[in-house]
């Protein structure tokens, strides 16, 4: 809910007059501002030390930690599936078509009676709400929160996921998120168990090498995909209306 409100506030103040690319910049700046405000103002949200949230997960708190973790996986999975189906409702029907039209040419969209400002507000609100939901899940999982837990680079990782999966379609983004978020960002932890890398790490005398490798892989992936396959793993699908023509 708070996500939606913040999204709409940002949209009303600035985005009414901005083009899409500048909107994205405005959003990034606002996120930086939010982080700065929190870390500068200690009494408000305890600055960089963050907040600790005690009741981690009431229904399962008496369970074994292992069970708790798997229960959490389940909850996240359900939330993702729910979000996916809800968002399909937005993107798959006439409303999604309207949004894609606006993306292509907002002047022409206005010429056919679309209220572009209202549409952007709606998108902003929905995006903000889902952003807020995922933030809430993250906070519940690490049972604490501080601005340093989520920096620029995490935002970039999400962008990579969208580019690799394929922009403009839900399936692509979901797959991209799975690949980048789970396989690469989390997968690097297990590289520590690879003896050769372990040896390399002590040879160059640099701890955390495998962790950094994850970021290197991410950056490379972004470049490779933009260069070789800008449409992503799953390109946007061409909609058909089931007629005699093909």
């Amino acid at each position, binding site marked *: 809910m708070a996500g939606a409100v913040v999204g709409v506030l940002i949209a009303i103040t600035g985005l009414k007059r901005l083009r899409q690319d500048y909107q994205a910049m405005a959003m990034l700046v606002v996120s930086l501002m939010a982080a700065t405000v929190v870390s500068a103002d200690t009494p408000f949200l305890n600055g960089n030390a963050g907040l600790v949230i005690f009741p981690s997960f009431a229904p399962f708190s008496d369970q074994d930690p292992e069970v708790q973790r798997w229960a959490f996986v389940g909850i996240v999975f359900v939330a993702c599936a729910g979000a996916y189906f809800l968002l399909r409702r937005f993107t798959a*029907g*006439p*409303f999604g078509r309207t949004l*894609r039209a606006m993306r292509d040419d907002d002047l022409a*969209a*206005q*010429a*056919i009676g679309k209220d572009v400002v209202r549409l952007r507000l709606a998108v902003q609100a929905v995006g903000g709400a889902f952003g807020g939901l995922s933030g809430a899940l993250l906070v519940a999982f690490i049972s604490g929160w501080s601005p340093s837990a989520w920096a620029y680079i995490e935002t970039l990782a999400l962008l990579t996921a969208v580019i690799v999966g394929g922009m403009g379609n839900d399936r692509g983004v979901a797959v991209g998120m799975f690949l980048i978020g789970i396989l690469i960002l989390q997968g690097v932890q297990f590289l520590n168990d690879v003896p050769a890398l372990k040896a390399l790490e002590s040879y160059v005398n640099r701890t955390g090498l495998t962790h950094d490798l994850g970021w290197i892989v991410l950056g490379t992936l972004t470049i490779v995909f933009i260069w070789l396959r800008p449409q992503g793993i799953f390109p946007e699908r061409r909609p058909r*209306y089931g007629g005699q023509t093909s």
Partner: protein
Amino acid sequence: MTVAQRPILEVKNLAKNYGGVQAVDGVSFTVERGSITGLIGPNGAGKSTALNVIGGLLSPAAGSVVFDGVDVTGQPMHRLARRGLVRTFQLARVFGNLTTIENLLVAAPSHRGDSAIGILAGKRYWGDQERQMVAQARELLASFGMTDREDEYARNLSGGQKRAVETMRALMMKPKLLLLDEPMAGLSPSLSRQLEDMFLKLSADGLSLLLVEHGLDTVERICGKVVVMAQGKVLSEGRMAELRTRREVQDAYVIG
């Protein structure tokens, strides 16, 4: 005078300036219901600016625009479009990443699938309307001879086809008045003949059109009344054939 008798569009003393330049300077004219009215004039006469002000893209410095009996001066473009005053652009603006038929469907007015309920309720709420719109769009495509381009991305269409898509898209909105900004620019002679016939047919069916056009032959063939602008003002008004003989019009075109 009842609304039904009034002209579909009444423009009074319209003015618009860009800084110190008076692009449109006290322009008045009317478009009668069911007519094709031409708006011509040399480059820089203010035709496109006038059209942009009428269509709601620019707001006027002075004057009024009365559409279908209602004062709509300064209303934004999307609201005018919903009222039935729909424009096209000088350079056809299609939605390139939508297919041809999607370009038409997206213009369907007050589609239930665009509403909040429609989004949440899904197909069973808007499916019927969508089927009707698809049928309507296919009819239009057939009448423009573009049935075989239905599933092509609009960005891959030829210039003339893009223009046709823009016109069909406007027609999907069931407009009362169509503002056309140089619809023939860049079309082959045979294509523009086809489009002329289409406009004549639409006007016979009751649609009113206001046409900004450089090709005077086209104007002569399809327009009833023609308004001549020069240097931001209305210079003359009448049928094309008689305008050709008028001194001030000839002068404007030579000097302009």
